[in-house]
């Protein structure tokens, strides 16, 4: 049966049209990633209208290709011009640009390309092995647990997406509210239509996503008339040839850095809300701390390129694990992919892999093939991508806004979706201006219906609300949601206030309670390990006399 499913998936994926679309997708992603100010999420959002007429396997293969290409495209601009193409490649520029300036642009690019490949491949293997296991755990979830999982996803996204948790939570709540406009899905009762036929239909969420994310970002980019008329990057070298063999030899020498980066990337990706922009800095930081030559970092150290590049490409595998196993998007990009699945009436849930095996295997295979294709396309078309960064921002904005109109209309053939795009573009622009992160709102829009349906199911089974705190999984998600809500506060006063010394032990002790409640053998063992870790941390801090340790934090920005 598994062989049959894999064979079916290969038949879809190795179709000539799909291969061509994948190559175009990787090239498109590489171009988008290479352009500073053009985020990967925006590229994937803009790909969506093209995929609606394709079978889901083909559409997702194209979107995954764009994403994999985008993650790698950022390194080209970063290495050759010193301006990271995407937030995921910020740390790559720390050593990539000095190495290129020092006369080794080919080696810097080669290390970036092959580290991206390695990170992508490791996370693809983890995706194939972990997603079905996590989905098996997900099958235990009842509506109470699933509702609380959505709340956890929103809370952690709000806490990681911006500097201000309250603004993040308001954005998330606004996203949930947007999905309530129109007919109630369970009973078909109109809500917030204000007597208007337009509002009765509700907002098409793809138009909402494109408006909020792409439209508002573009207008932000052309705010400054002078900056809008200049090329995206005018400095840097154009003559570079990737030194493949030298890069592979160096990568093999520092294999542990690549492996650690890939693991950091994958596990950061699994966490809803944390993406490549967080992973690349974490991996760089770890590589520097464990390196034998930490003083070389910032001057063109190979390890400083390998770690962030292997980690940022690995995040997508992690985000796909959460999406495929639990039906929860790990980041904005997987939220868009989840939207693409919903267009095809495929609802990701813990039973997704069991119920849609061909589609699930297609996603696995697509991820592998896109990673391989990325190396080929990037090596062959390097010059083209660098040339693209010479485009003036206002031309890009005009062309993409024109495309947004056609693309959004094409999804449902409804004029009103264009106005939805426009109004949500205005809203997104204002939200960015007033410092509200958009990622929680997008997750709220995507997950709003799922949360409401599960709440309705839970109450239909039993109206007793105590199930939200007495069921182990629900309690587990509630506890980590509460701790993640406190996280930004913890981060801002870490090393300054005494209570922060008890944060980590507190997480360990609190999370162990529902794990004990789950019963069986492995979970209570994990709970015991958590308690041991908490006690060990407390013991160390007691030995140090409860002294506050200085902490050098990293700024985490929405990607």
């Amino acid at each position, binding site marked *: 049966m598994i062989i049959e499913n894999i064979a079916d998936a290969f038949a879809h994926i190795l179709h000539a049209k799909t291969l061509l679309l994948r190559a175009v997708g990787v090239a498109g992603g590489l171009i988008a990633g290479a352009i500073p100010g053009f985020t990967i999420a925006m590229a994937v959002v803009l790909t969506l209208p*093209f995929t609606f*007429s394709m079978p889901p396997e083909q559409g997702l293969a194209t979107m995954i290709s764009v994403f994999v290409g985008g993650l790698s495209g950022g390194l080209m601009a970063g290495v050759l011009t010193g301006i990271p193409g995407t937030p995921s490649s910020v740390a790559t520029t720390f050593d990539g640009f000095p190495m290129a300036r020092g006369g080794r642009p080919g080696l810097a690019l080669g290390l970036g390309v092959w580290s991206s490949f390695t990170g992508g491949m490791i996370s693809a293997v983890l995706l194939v092995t972990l997603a079905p296991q996590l989905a098996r755990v997900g099958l235990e979830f009842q509506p109470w647990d699933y509702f609380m999982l959505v709340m956890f996803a929103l809370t952690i996204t709000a806490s990681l997406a911006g500097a201000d948790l*309250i*603004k993040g*939570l*308001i954005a998330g*709540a*606004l996203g*949930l*509210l947007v999905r*309530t406009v129109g007919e*109630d899905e*369970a*009973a078909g*009762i*109109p*809500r*917030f239509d*204000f007597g208007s036929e337009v509002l009765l239909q509700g907002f098409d969420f793809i138009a909402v996503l494109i408006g909020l994310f792409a439209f508002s970002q*573009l*207008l*932000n980019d*052309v*705010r*400054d*008339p002078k900056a*809008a*008329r200049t090329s995206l990057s005018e400095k840097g070298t154009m003559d570079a040839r990737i030194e493949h063999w030298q890069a592979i030899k160096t990568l093999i020498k520092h294999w542990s850095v690549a492996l650690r980066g890939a693991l950091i990337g994958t596990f950061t990706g699994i966490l809803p809300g944390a993406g490549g922009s967080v992973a690349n800095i974490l991996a760089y930081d770890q590589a520097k701390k464990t390196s034998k030559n930490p003083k070389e970092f910032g001057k063109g150290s190979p390890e400083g390129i390998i770690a962030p590049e292997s980690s940022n490409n690995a995040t997508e595998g992690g985000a796909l694990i959460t999406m495929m196993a639990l039906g929860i998007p790990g980041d904005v990009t997987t939220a868009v992919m989840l939207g693409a699945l919903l267009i095809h009436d495929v609802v990701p849930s813990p039973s997704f892999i069991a119920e849609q095996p061909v589609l699930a295997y297609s996603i696995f295979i697509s991820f592998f093939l896109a990673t391989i294709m990325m190396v080929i396309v990037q090596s062959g078309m390097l010059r083209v991508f660098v040339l693209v960064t010479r485009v*003036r921002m*206002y*031309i890009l*904005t*005009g*062309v993409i*806004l*024109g*495309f947004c*109109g*056609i*693309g959004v*209309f*094409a999804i449902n*053939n409804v*004029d009103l979706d*264009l*106005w939805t795009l*426009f109004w949500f*573009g*205005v809203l997104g*622009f204002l939200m960015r201006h*007033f410092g509200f992160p958009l990622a929680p709102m997008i997750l709220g829009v995507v997950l709003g219906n799922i*949360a*409401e349906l599960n*709440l*309705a199911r839970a*109450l*239909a089974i039993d*109206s007793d609300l105590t199930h939200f705190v007495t069921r182990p999984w629900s309690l587990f998600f509630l506890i980590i949601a509460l701790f993640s809500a406190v996280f930004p506060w913890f981060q801002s006063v870490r090393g300054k206030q005494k209570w922060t010394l008890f944060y980590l032990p507190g997480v360990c002790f609190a999370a162990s309670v529902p794990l004990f409640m789950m019963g069986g053998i492995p979970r209570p063992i994990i709970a015991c390990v958590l308690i041991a870790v908490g006690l060990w941390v407390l013991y160390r801090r007691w030995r140090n006399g409860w002294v506050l340790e200085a902490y050098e934090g990293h700024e985490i920005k929405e990607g």
Partner: protein
Amino acid sequence: MERLNRDTFVAVFLLLFCGVMFWASFDIREPDYGMLPPSAWPRVILTLMSFLSVIYLVRSLSRGPDGPGAYPGEPKSLLGWIAYWRNPIACFALFAGYLTAIPWFGMLISGVAFVFCLLTFLGGWSPRRLLLHAAVAIFAVGGMWSIFTYGLRVLLPTGEWTGI
């Protein structure tokens, strides 16, 4: 009034918005079936949002007024404000014009005109630039229109006056 800052106005706006939506939630019809009334979930969200907005308001008030360097570059006068935001305002206005023109001119012609006008507004109108903008508008919008019309078989809107 001395304690007010930009966040205070945003918080007050959010509270008013929550109030209006809460009021509107009483117009939602309650069916006789189902355990979760259709108005319950929106009210849960609005209650949470109101609570968060109150925290936001209190925090903004306790922070005090914005200092002179709180928003660098942003002018205080209306004309200065319009000049500062002229590009986004023009983009929104042109896009709204584009959407309004679609039923009369169709998506292709409106789209080309919109992209050309936008590029010219943002990039300047020297003869060389005008030529470049026209070429970009025709190739980009025409290309996308062709892909969707002939490649993906999507029926894009035609104009009442132009028939295209």
